[in-house]
């Protein structure tokens, strides 16, 4: 079997056995989306304004929470060293792990977002754009976050440090993701934003596995 597919299947089935990992991201997303109206007030006009931003930040934070687990489990039981030493290309194995991470932590957010968007009274077109930006954006976040996870592997205080490292790099995705929905609502159309998001995703898909592989080698030598 293709090592890429094998790693994806392995990671997904391992995580599904301990369902709490998948549920943490989803639960956090739902809670954040509920907390903001509670903190700001139920005025529908305000909520419609802040909805795209809040949902995007919620998805971003939820995705970031699960990053630490990407490599830590395999690092603990020695599987990661086997991957680094194996003859299969490390960037492709890392790409497989990132894909598995997205399937578990990112894709559920995309699926859940229409429901949460209704809490902010977003109309159908806005919801469509929101789902599209999350569909493009969450893999981008996984790809960027993976580099941070690899750099902080096994380091003291890795969780907080990881957030600090990764948040500046998340800013472009957030700006264009939330901006796309706002552009759609303002009647300007989101195609420019979506194109830029797609371009960033492509660049990250090419560069991130390579950067992660370097970081893992640095961490494990």
């Amino acid at each position, binding site marked *: 079997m293709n090592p890429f597919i094998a790693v994806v299947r392995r990671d997904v089935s391992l995580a599904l056995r301990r369902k709490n990992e998948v549920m943490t991201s989803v639960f956090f997303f739902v809670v954040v989306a509920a907390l903001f109206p509670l903190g700001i007030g139920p005025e529908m006009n305000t909520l419609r304004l802040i909805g795209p931003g809040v949902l995007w930040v919620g998805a971003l934070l939820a995705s970031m929470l699960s990053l630490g687990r990407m490599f830590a489990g395999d690092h603990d039981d020695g599987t990661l060293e086997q991957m680094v030493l194996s003859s299969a290309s490390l960037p492709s194995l890392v790409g497989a792990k990132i894909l598995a991470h997205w399937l578990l932590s990112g894709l559920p957010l995309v699926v859940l977002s229409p429901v949460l968007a209704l809490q902010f009274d977003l109309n159908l077109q806005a919801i469509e754009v929101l789902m599209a930006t999350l569909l493009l954006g969450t893999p981008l976040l996984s790809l960027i976050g993976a*580099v941070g996870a690899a*750099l*902080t592997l096994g*380091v*003291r*205080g*890795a969780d907080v*440090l990881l957030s*600090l*490292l990764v*948040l*500046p*790099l998340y*800013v*472009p995705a957030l*700006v*264009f993701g939330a*901006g796309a929905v*706002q*552009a759609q609502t303002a009647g300007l159309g989101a195609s420019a934003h979506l194109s830029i998001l797609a371009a*960033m995703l492509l660049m990250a898909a090419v560069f991130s596995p390579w*950067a992660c592989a*370097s*970081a893992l080698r*640095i*961490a494990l*030598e």
Partner: protein
Amino acid sequence: MTPHSNVLFRFAAPQAFYGLAGRLWPWVAALATVFGVWGLWTGMFVAPIDFQQGQAYRIIFVHVPASWMSMIIYLAMAFWAVLGLTFNTRLSGMMNRALAPTGAMFAFLSLWTGALWGKPMWGAWWVWDARLTSELILFFLYLGFMGLTASIDDPRRSDKAGGLLALVGAINVPIIYFSVRWWNTLHQGASVTVTQGSSMAQTMLWAMLLMALSFWLYAIAIALYRIRTLILEREKHTQWVNAELRPEGAS
């Protein structure tokens, strides 16, 4: 190995660089002081009052140099990171650790002076101006670098991980700046910029350039000084360090 690259790589050895840095930094520091005094004199006693902003504009004499330095130092760190990752030199990682605190300080100063400039000019301590927001993110990038290199105990791993982070950050800085500018123009009708317009009086520009030069030389001097401390720490098991520390003769 060509003779030319021999010279270059000779100073890649910590011992050789220690001596070079020791001879250089006092001169660089002296130059920095000279330009600083000259710049302050020009800025505070020669440059006239600004038509729009009154005397408050004088903050640019520290705000703009600090901003420029925070960006230049980050570029320098990326440069050393590439060198370190390519040639596996120990000195590159040490150079980055020597540069980062100064870069972070300049980024903070840029934000602080920007806020103090914004308050009298635009009535708010913080405006989400594209430049200031990008500067804030750059400040976080510096903190991330310092946090990462501080948390990893093994010096070689720390150097390389820091180098990779600096490189990834540097590649992202243009993207971040572009996205923040896009975000800023979308959400603000009248574009509020903290930067001075290009129509500055000659003396103002001159004072600003002098201060920028002074800050740049200051950064070089303090990085050279700091790296000597780092070299001593890292190389403490070598003979030359022991000889250096006990010039009165070994027992």
